[in-house]
């Protein structure tokens, strides 16, 4: 396997009228080419911000931590993303080698520009081709993602497509430039279950064909189990557990991950009670000290949890957890 992406100590803060919000706090992970990583966590845990940070897409009130380092490994050598400035340099991570599928497919197409024009525009920016060829490639891509009558759809607007078709068009557009990394931010939440399954299958096929890496963001652990090779769990901007998907789902080690899994309905035993994680997510303005999860943790080891940020400890090979239960002093 070849390394595709290194994210080291990613920290991102927003300056707001209420104060500074730490949306992503010291997050590190890696991704290999051809690998699918699931990024899960409750709403507001910083998944979308993490995704946008990789493309330097966050708004003007955002600032990165000083030791944030993001490296994209391309054939011509590594790209230090934090050192990219200006639209020319950033092109490579914006629609070139990295594509992002946004959470809401309807809102991410410009309403008064046809799907086709938006696709062609992206191809002309990144690929060495003329407008005629770009149109052919776009129609091929629309066909590829299973949109019927692609040349007709090419000339249509987003509001003329159904939700599932829009999501497919979004995928077609994102993949048209043959990116090395695809970030899919909840690409299926807006879809009903059958279409969701189709879209997921489609993405799996395309990953295989294109050999790219995917960061797949979702709330849905079921989707993760079907699609991802590995999973990273976020809580309040911090990564708290990561590892191969089977290990993490079968043997969740962080009390938060355990809680997420326990909160899932069980199809084999529909009478078993759902046990949601107790308590509310703290306001991002008042981040808990020590372990960010200690305000809701049923284990909570006391002083150490409230005072000291837990480091990652190894559970099994490649499966790491940031909890004092597994760290030196608190370890069992």
């Amino acid at each position, binding site marked *: 396997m070849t390394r595709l992406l290194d994210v080291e100590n990613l920290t991102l803060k927003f300056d707001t009228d209420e104060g500074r919000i730490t949306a992503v706090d010291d997050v590190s992970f890696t991704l290999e080419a051809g690998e699918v990583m699931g990024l899960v966590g409750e709403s507001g845990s910083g998944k979308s911000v993490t995704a*946008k940070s990789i493309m330097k*897409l966050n708004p003007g009130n955002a600032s990165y931590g000083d030791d944030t380092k993001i490296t994209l490994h391309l054939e011509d050598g590594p790209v230090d993303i934090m050192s990219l400035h200006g639209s020319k340099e*950033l092109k490579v991570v*914006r629609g070139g080698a990295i594509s992002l599928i946004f959470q809401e497919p309807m809102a991410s197409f410009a309403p*008064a520009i046809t799907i086709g024009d938006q696709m062609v525009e*992206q191809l002309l920016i990144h690929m060495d081709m003329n407008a005629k060829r770009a149109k052919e490639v776009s129609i091929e891509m629309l066909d590829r993602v299973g949109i019927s009558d692609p040349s007709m759809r090419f000339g249509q*607007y987003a*509001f003329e497509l159904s939700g599932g078709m829009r999501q497919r068009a979004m995928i077609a557009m994102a993949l048209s430039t043959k990116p090395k990394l695809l970030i899919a931010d909840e690409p299926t939440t807006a879809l009903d279950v059958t279409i969701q399954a189709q879209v997921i299958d489609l993405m799996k096929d395309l990953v295989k064909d294109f050999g790219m890496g995917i960061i797949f963001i979702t709330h849905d652990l079921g989707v993760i189990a079907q699609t991802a090779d590995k999973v990273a769990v976020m809580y309040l901007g911090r990564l708290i557990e990561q590892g191969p998907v089977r290990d993490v789902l079968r043997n969740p080690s962080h009390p938060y991950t355990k809680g997420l899994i326990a909160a899932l309905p069980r199809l084999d035993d529909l009478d078993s009670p759902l046990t949601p994680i107790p308590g509310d997510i703290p306001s991002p303005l008042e981040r808990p000290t020590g372990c960010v999860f200690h305000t809701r943790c049923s284990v909570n080891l006391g002083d150490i949890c409230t005072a000291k940020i837990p480091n990652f400890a190894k559970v099994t090979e490649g499966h790491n957890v940031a909890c004092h239960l597994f760290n030196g002093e608190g370890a069992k």
Partner: protein
Amino acid sequence: MLQFSKFVAVRAALAVLTLVLVSFIVFTLMELVPGDCAERYVAFKSSQGSVITAADIQIERVRLGLDQPYVQRWGSWIFNAFQGEFGDSCILRVNIAQLLGQKFWLSLGLCLSALLLAYAIAIPVGIIAATSKNAVLNNSLRLVSYLGLALPNFLLALMIMLFSTVFFGDSLTGLFSKEYRDAPWDYDKVMDFLGHAWLPVFILGWSATAFAIQTVRALMSDEIGKLYVTAAAARGVSGRRLLMRYPARHALSPIINSLGFDLNRIFTELPIVALILTLTEAGSLLIEALARSNDQQLAGAIIFMLTASIVGINFITDIILALTDPRIRRSIVG
């Protein structure tokens, strides 16, 4: 194409219907003014020393058609109005179409120029204001547009007159120099007119511009915050292309939509500005007709024509919108 013609036809029919309704309201209001044209004329005559009897009034009524039933008179009034024929003024006793003719078109021209000026300034300035992060620039723009909103047009007109009288010895009033006032239109008269017209256009455009800047800025900020703009940036679209093709292009529809309101607002400011600058355009005639002489015939004609202009503008903007906004276009052209 066929569907588009149908759309235009339906909109045109709606516009005419609106005008018919408005004409009914205007006509009813004219009727509600105490006294009618016959009485008013006769009163005028008697003030000239003639001895007037009730029979004379009745004869005048018959002559003016005032003895006909209400609905019939309304019908013939609007029938004529749609052909630009409004009968005679009650007081001035001259044909209204002749009296208004040129004045009305001058007024409309002034207002449209003010509207044009307002948007010619507001679109670039509004876009800059919405995108610039420069606090000094933003705050000065804000200050100027607050001034524009807060400073009434008539005050501005008075200030400019005062200023120019003191410094140039010319009050800058009127639309024509004396020698051209009654001259036929020729090159010199046009130049003379333009030399005078910029001031009322500027004054009328002043608050319209301030208003339009606010509109454009708000619409632009709104569009810029939308996800499709971030999504376009994520695809590598950047710089001016991103700005113009995405938020600016999409803010256009609501801007076109607001043109009708803006013209309306300018119309309502016209009379008072005209009064101060002693322009003899239709707006000041309206005030005159309403406030001084109770000339309902003239007032009705002016209100009808102003309304017709606004309905006309709305009709035109509807058509432009249908051509530029795919959501509307698709719903009619398919």
